[in-house]
């Protein structure tokens, strides 16, 4: 297995594990961290291809993903804190007000 295939498989595995984490875990904070893992998988894929192509375009996109991840966390964490203050739990099953 060559380097590109290895790293792309790792990127796919990280993305799939992150998605599984979002689906199967109960804790909202752990779900957020699994989303970060998915972004990391996408980043690894971009960096691998950017490295292979020898172009800086992929790196620019990676930088933009860093910024998006930071903005996501900056908005998501206050929402989680607000929900915890209201429901007194991190359990996703308690947040059923958003139905329908």
């Amino acid at each position, binding site marked *: 297995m060559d380097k590109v295939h290895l790293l792309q498989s790792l990127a796919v595995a990280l993305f799939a594990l992150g998605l599984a984490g979002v689906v*199967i875990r109960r804790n909202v904070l752990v779900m957020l961290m*699994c989303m970060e893992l998915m972004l990391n998988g996408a980043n690894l894929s971009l960096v691998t291809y950017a490295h292979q*192509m020898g172009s800086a375009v992929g790196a620019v996109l990676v930088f933009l993903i860093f910024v998006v991840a930071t903005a996501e966390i900056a908005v998501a964490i206050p929402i989680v804190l607000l929900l915890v203050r209201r429901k007194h739990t991190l359990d996703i099953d308690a947040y059923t007000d958003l139905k329908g």
Partner: protein
Amino acid sequence: MIESLLANLETLLLYLFAACALAGAVLMLVLRQPMRVAMALISTMVFLGGVYGLLGVHFIAAFQVLIYVGAVMVFMVYVIMLLDPRDPALARRFSTLLIPGVLACVALFAVFGWALWQTPAAVPGAVAGAPFGLAQFAAAFLSEYWLHFELTSVLLVAAVVAAIAIIDINRRERG
């Protein structure tokens, strides 16, 4: 023996870092305490930074450690410390969608892996292993992609305003 080991040191380290990053990701799914999950994610990110360093894109490795580990995960760790450790959500790790979730994860990995296997390793037009440095990245960023660079600042301002608005909702509710 040692010479051949040293010659392949980079490849060996790449395999080692990739395996450790994967192990951290798997640990994230099975550990119970959010703090331990955060530590597993931090180790995965640091090992990915090592992978980026081995690929020769050192500035992305630095960004990975500075932005992800230094900013995002430190923020996450602080929030975990703010919350109640006796939360009932910690007693039950998995939701009712455990089996479908795992099956979907395996199916996704299989589909992507199959697609990856069908593509040749060499992308058409690839310059084998041609490195690009910070200078090339910075020139591309500030000449060709300046609009995106400016848009990131707009996005960050929007995120800060949104965070303040959420805190304000919180304050109004408590009176």
